[in-house]
């Protein structure tokens, strides 16, 4: 912080970072928001058992106050974004010239340039070592504020929902404590100022996820799922560590006199202005991408997400739909300067991020077709939507991705909580065997679920349509009456996105049919859930309807100009730490085309289920869930495809069977053999050789040479003694003779010398 302050005093003498140290009280003290749930975590663990409601009231109070603060902070940010006149912070860099200022210099084209949005930055030094200061701090910009609101809101609704859902549970208090801790960690993650803090919060949310997934750990599948989630995340976290380290040192090469920098603002500003080496940025981006793949369930590290559905449904709603899994997306959005330069998103037609994102959307959507468990359908749907967000970021449509994150949080949480409500009523998650025809028994749940489904499928005017359409436009590959001018021509991604839109609509139709239509296949009498469940559902459904209107595209003829792009205006940064991205022009034709595609998907699936399966059910007299003579029975290719999907692309086989068992079995045996034969043999041989050498040395050298020398010297001494003894003849005159001779010689010497 001191470095930044000193640099700030000499403004205009360095790289502008797009952050400021000033700002309103709320923006500067946003650390209070994570603090409240953290306090409630401690208090719940300490006092929860004694409280009348088992500690849940503390949790709800904390998150509630945090939500209120978050809203107020949002209002403060809205005011600050356009009206702040605080001084911008600059940082001294190596070979910085004012002419080639680079990309993010605060004057943006394409996004209504004008007033830059300075993020409010605040740090405190907590550790100093070897000239390097480690800081904790907050960096509040539109993205952070948006995330604060979303997380606190969804967390609050989940808290209220949980009071009924896990009522009477064996570990009620513990559950609420960790729900609070999770909220605190996620809130800390979104306001983190530097990558170290982000990494700590990242790990913390992973731990909370582990604890909450394994809430009923007495049953082995649940604890297995928790471990799987944590370990898969660990694989990706290595990438995070690599990425953070590489960025630290890369930043250090551009900042004079400093080893490096963990600061997000500095790193991104340096990356955006082209001062970091491209190789370093590419390596860091790939490392961070690995972390995103594991945390946000991108293809081939997504295997933990469906298994994570073993946890309680509110946990799934909060963590694995709305908030934690989007931490990866959030991180990309936060570090966008690094990714934009690292993957060279501007001006190409394919890059790693976009490809992985696109692949994930299709993979997730396909897998959602073959699930029996309603939560697993939603889990794969989440994977698919996360793929959308990552793909959007990969093509340079930053606002579209973040907006989709925003809307997705609401309708996915609504869907999950709805599924929880259903499960609460029928005590099962299996659609095929225990559900069906529930629209008559659970009207609120049915209606909110339908609203959520339509929003997810992307039919106008619900939220999902606006955000998904903006992503498709952002790929810049449409080119027909608009939809051009993006950061590149990502036609392949456009195709993937369109295909997935159709698939999404199709599998959600299937899900809705199996759950709410047909005849009830389960046992007992399902009834609607209480208000603590249905009220949050309605709130979320309402948001799923209206949230889309926050970001009407520019040039939308049906809305006044002041209402266009409100979300984008306040959330997308116009600052030194954000790269210069271009925005594609919206297109009516693309909107119409995507709607038609979605309706096509609904129609196809609807035809299969609502017409044919319904007819078959009526003909058979029971409630069928699929056609007995459907395509998979008639076409072997279809059957094979089904088998592939059913086995989740055999990825679990690969990870468990091949990699894990291969390491445990053959590899371990090989290593053991190597250890015994080679290493131990070598050690033994060395030992034996040493013994042999020792023996030889003893016999030859020690006995003969060394002892010989010693004995010889002894003999020489005694021999000399024998000889010299003769001098002592006892004859006085001999002594006298020697005496005289010696004295004379000495005298002679004395005379000669002196």
């Amino acid at each position, binding site marked *: 912080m001191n470095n930044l302050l000193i640099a700030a005093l000499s403004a205009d003498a360095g790289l502008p970072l797009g952050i400021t140290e000033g700002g309103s009280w709320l923006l500067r003290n946003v650390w209070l928001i994570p603090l409240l749930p953290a306090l409630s975590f401690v208090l719940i663990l300490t006092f929860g058992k004694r409280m009348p409601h088992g500690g849940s009231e503390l949790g709800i109070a904390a998150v509630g106050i945090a939500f209120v603060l978050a809203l107020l902070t949002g209002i403060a940010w809205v005011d600050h974004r356009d009206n702040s006149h605080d001084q911008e912070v600059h940082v001294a860099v190596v070979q910085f010239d004012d002419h080639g200022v680079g990309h993010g210099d605060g004057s943006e084209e394409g996004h209504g340039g004008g007033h830059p949005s300075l993020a409010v930055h605040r740090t405190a030094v907590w550790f100093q070592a070897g000239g390097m200061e480690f800081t904790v701090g907050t960096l509040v910009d539109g993205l952070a504020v948006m995330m604060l609101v979303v997380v606190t809101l969804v967390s609050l609704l989940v808290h209220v929902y949980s009071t009924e859902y896990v009522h009477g549970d064996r570990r009620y208090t513990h559950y609420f404590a960790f729900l609070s801790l999770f909220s605190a960690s996620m809130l800390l993650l979104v306001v983190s100022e530097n990558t170290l803090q982000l990494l700590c919060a990242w790990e913390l949310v992973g731990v909370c996820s582990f604890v909450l997934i394994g809430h009923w750990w007495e049953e082995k599948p649940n604890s297995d799922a928790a471990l799987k989630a944590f370990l898969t995340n660990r694989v990706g976290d290595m990438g995070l560590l690599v990425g953070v380290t590489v960025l630290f040192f890369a930043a250090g090469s551009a900042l004079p006199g400093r080893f490096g920098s963990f600061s997000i603002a500095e790193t991104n500003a340096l990356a955006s202005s082209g001062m970091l080496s491209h190789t370093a940025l590419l390596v860091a981006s790939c490392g961070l991408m690995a972390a995103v793949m594991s945390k946000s369930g991108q293809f081939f590290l997504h295997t933990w997400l469906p298994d994570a559905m073993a946890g309680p449904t509110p946990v799934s709603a909060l963590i694995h739909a709305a908030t934690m899994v989007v931490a990866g997306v959030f991180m990309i959005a936060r570090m966008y300067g690094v990714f934009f330069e690292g993957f060279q998103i501007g001006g190409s037609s394919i890059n790693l991020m976009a490809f992985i994102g696109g692949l994930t959307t299709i993979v997730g959507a396909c897998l959602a077709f073959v699930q029996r468990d309603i939560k697993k359908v939603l889990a794969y749907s989440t994977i698919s939507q996360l793929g959308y967000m990552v793909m959007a970021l990969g093509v340079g449509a930053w606002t579209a991705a973040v907006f989709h994150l925003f809307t997705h949080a609401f309708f996915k949480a609504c869907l999950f909580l709805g599924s929880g409500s259903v499960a609460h009523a029928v005590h099962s998650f299996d659609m095929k065997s225990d559900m069906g025809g529930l629209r008559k028994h659970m009207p609120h749940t049915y209606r909110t679920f339908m609203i959520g489904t339509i929003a997810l499928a992307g039919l106008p005017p619900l939220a999902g349509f606006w955000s998904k359409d903006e992503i498709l436009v952002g790929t810049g590959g449409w080119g027909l009456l608009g939809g051009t001018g993006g950061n590149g021509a990502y036609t392949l991604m456009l195709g993937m996105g369109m295909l997935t839109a159709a698939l999404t609509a199709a599998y959600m139709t299937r899900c809705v049919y199996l759950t709410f239509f047909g005849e009830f296949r389960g046992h007992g009498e399902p009834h609607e859930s209480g208000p603590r469940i249905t009220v949050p559902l309605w709130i979320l459904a309402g948001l799923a309807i209206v949230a889309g209107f926050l970001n009407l595209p520019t040039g939308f003829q049906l809305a006044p100009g002041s209402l266009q792009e409100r979300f984008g205006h306040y959330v997308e940064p116009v600052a030194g730490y954000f790269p210069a991205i271009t925005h594609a022009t919206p297109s009516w034709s693309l909107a119409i085309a995507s709607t038609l595609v979605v309706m096509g998907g609904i129609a196809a699936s609807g035809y299969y289920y609502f017409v044919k399966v319904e007819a078959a059910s009526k003909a058979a007299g029971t409630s069928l869930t699929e056609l007995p003579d459907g395509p998979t029975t008639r076409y072997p290719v279809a059957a094979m495809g089904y088998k592939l999907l059913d086995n989740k692309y055999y990825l679990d086989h690969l990870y468990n069977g091949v990699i894990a068992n291969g390491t445990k079995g053959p590899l371990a045996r090989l290593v053991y053999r190597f250890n015994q034969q080679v290493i131990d043999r070598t050690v033994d041989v060395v030992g034996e050789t040493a013994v042999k050498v020792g023996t030889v040395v003893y016999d030859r050298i020690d006995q003969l040479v060394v002892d010989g020398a010693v004995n010889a010297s002894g003999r020489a001494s005694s021999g000399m003694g024998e000889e010299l003894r003769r001098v002592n003849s006892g004859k006085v005159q001999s002594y006298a*003779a020697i005496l005289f001779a010696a004295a004379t010689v000495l*005298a002679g010497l004395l005379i000669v010398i002196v």
Partner: protein
Amino acid sequence: MTVLAALEGMDRLSGGDVLVAQNVAFAIMAITMVASALRMVTTRNVVHAALYLVIVLAGVAGIFILLGAEFLGVTQIMVYIGAIVVLFLFGIMLTKGSFGDDDGVTGERRLMAGLVGFLVFGVMTAALVESFADAELSRSGPSTTADIADSIFSAYIVPFEAVSVLLLAALIGAIVVARKD
């Protein structure tokens, strides 16, 4: 060599006759002394050795007088010849079993002794010739007994007393060592 050297310096100082006489006297006495000394250390007869010693001692007394130390010369004769030689003769007499025993001195021993003696002589001569070549003896006059007495009883009183004690000790010691008991 020395004799020749001595003869060389004959015509140096003033008073040529006196000097010549002194040098002649010295020459005679020196030759006598050296010869006697050589005989003394080589003869087998012990009494003959004692008598040769007397000649040497007498010669020494003469040298003293030549050098102007009259008191010392007389003391030399009285003490050495008068007492010490008598003592030697007593010794010889009391250890009479050793008459004529002094034979069979192996050549080896005499060679070694001669070598050492020669070595000593060589070193000393070299030193002396180098240091005191052509140093003249110039004496104002012979020293008197009064001078010696003055010296003894003033400057050298402590050595005098010490020598007295030494003589007493030697006397008592000799008696104690040699008594029959």
